[in-house]
């Protein structure tokens, strides 16, 4: 027998009101600062909590402590030089940010990415999604006191980072996506690392579920906490697993496929109640589905071996090293592209489904070497906005599960 979402919601409200009345300390408000250096706020989020006993009466989420002016930086740096900066937005999935930025530029300039480049991008995006969800799971668990889970998640993530190290040369902040494709092809070593890991990974996810799904503490601290119902999720423009956890079947990979996502066979998990527990279940299922996409992408890469992975469009893509020595023309292109890369007039916005939700770069070009405007649509900001309304009337300890399950990275929220 299951209760409907609205029933649970009603019950929750009533229970919270009752709790407030029963609280012996009721009546004395206390203002408490949670963060910006609190480990459970996942970065530098400051929450001004007005407490009534142990119940939160009001919460004010104060963002902006990590503001580095990324949009303005983009406008002053120029098109190609902004790539390393996108890495530092949502720093748990740098490659997905690179790709989101590249997609908008490519739409603006009308560049076709070769097939192999698209497959590689899908692979990188899904690998980053798994890495990001592992961070969510690990950090949320350690905030709730489950240290074992933290290590179990980071052990899996370590292999992903080994793969990225072998492929891109960096573990974090990879900067490996270029306008028109990716910088280098996948080699045997890194493919091997990924294939072996993908074989074991579904079993590891099962282990996570065995640890958590039936665990009483995890259950009590997540179940029916922070319920987002369908309408509220849409009203607050929440996105990503938070939206899908609330029962809305919205995934940009299905709705507006980019980079050839329509070729892959995968399911979009959605929740029923919309509490922290549902969001956890959705993310765990997403990890499984991402692993499935990775396997399919690797198979496709096998088939397209030797194909192009970077566009040959000499207006925007650097010529290969050897040719620069041999041909005057290529040398001129090299100088032209590095010093003065211009994009045609216009504007473009191509959103991707990152691990946090809809991530996109809105770029306006006036035909010069620098963007006139760059707006970053960061999914994390929308998710942070939901904190006050979700936490009102709840116990302070629920805040920790709530922050963990909304899953935002402050680098992206504040940008």
């Amino acid at each position, binding site marked *: 027998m299951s209760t409907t979402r609205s029933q649970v919601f009603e019950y929750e409200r009533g229970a919270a009101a009752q709790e407030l009345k029963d609280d012996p300390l009721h009546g004395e408000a206390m203002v408490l600062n949670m963060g910006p250096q609190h480990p459970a706020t996942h970065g530098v989020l400051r929450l001004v909590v007005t407490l009534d006993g142990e119940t939160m009466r009001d919460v004010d989420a104060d963002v902006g402590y990590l503001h580095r002016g990324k949009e303005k930086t983009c406008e002053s740096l120029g098109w190609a*030089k902004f790539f390393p900066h996108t890495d530092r937005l949502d720093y748990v999935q740098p490659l997905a940010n690179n790709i989101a930025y590249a997609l908008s530029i490519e739409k603006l300039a009308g560049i076709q990415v070769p097939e192999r480049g698209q497959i590689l991008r899908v692979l990188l995006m899904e690998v980053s999604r798994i890495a990001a969800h592992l961070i969510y799971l690990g950090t949320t668990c350690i905030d709730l006191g489950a240290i*074992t889970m933290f290590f179990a998640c980071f052990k899996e993530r370590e292999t992903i980072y080994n793969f990225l190290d072998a492929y*891109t040369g*960096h573990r974090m902040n990879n900067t490996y996506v270029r306008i028109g494709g990716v910088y*280098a092809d996948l080699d045997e070593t890194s493919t091997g690392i990924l294939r072996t890991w993908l074989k074991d990974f579904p079993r590891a996810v099962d282990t996570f579920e065995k640890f958590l799904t039936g665990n009483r503490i995890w259950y009590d601290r997540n179940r029916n906490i922070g319920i987002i119902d369908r309408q509220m999720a849409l009203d607050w423009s929440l996105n990503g697993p938070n939206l899908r956890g609330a029962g809305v079947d919205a995934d940009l990979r299905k709705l507006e496929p980019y980079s050839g996502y329509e070729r892959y066979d995968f399911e979009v998990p959605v929740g029923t109640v919309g509490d922290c527990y*549902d969001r956890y279940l959705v993310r765990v299922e997403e990890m499984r589905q991402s692993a499935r996409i990775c396997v399919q992408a690797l198979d496709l890469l096998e088939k397209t071996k030797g194909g192009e*992975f970077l566009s040959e469009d000499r207006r925007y893509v650097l010529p*290969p*090293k050897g040719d620069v020595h041999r041909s005057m023309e290529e040398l001129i292109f*090299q100088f032209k592209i590095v010093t003065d890369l211009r994009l045609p007039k216009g504007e473009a916005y191509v959103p991707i489904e990152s691990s946090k939700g809809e991530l996109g770069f809105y770029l306006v070009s006036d035909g010069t070497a620098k963007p006139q405007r760059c707006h970053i649509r960061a999914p994390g900001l929308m998710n942070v906005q939901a904190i006050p309304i979700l936490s009102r009337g709840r116990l302070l300890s629920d805040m920790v599960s709530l922050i963990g399950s909304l899953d935002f990275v402050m680098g992206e929220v504040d940008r």
Partner: protein
Amino acid sequence: MVIVKRKELSFAERLYLPEIFRALSLTFRNMFQREITRQYPEEPLPKTEVTRGQPRLVELEEGSLACVSCGLCEAACPAYAITIDGGETENFIEREPKLFEIDMLRCILCGFCEEACPKDAIFMSDELELAGFTRKGLVYGIDKLRRPRAALQKRIDYVYRINDRWRNSSSTH
């Protein structure tokens, strides 16, 4: 679309005690498994030619730098880490940097300078560690940046290998 299954706790799980024993058994099992922790400074990660460490300048056999101070790397650097001042020499290749500084505190090891250089004069080495007592000391000049070509040869070959993609079709341009 799949709807995720919400699990209801069974009686044993509600009791909590069996769960504790299950967890303890897991802990004990793990005691006999292979260690996965890496003792970092003692056991560094293997460095390959793919590793993008700090950029270094290539020194040719004759002892001069390959760099002609064209300024492309300076223009490509997203962190404004490079400062170049060009000058003339008596050598066959007449231009040489008088001043070539990379502020290692600013450098983000992105590799854009390597990609931009038209003379194969700057490459990413596998040197990663960076420590110093003063900020000034971490602004590397030519004397600290130059490396004989042989020391960077593996990386140079690698960059050529991944750049190989248009070798055959390049004549059309």
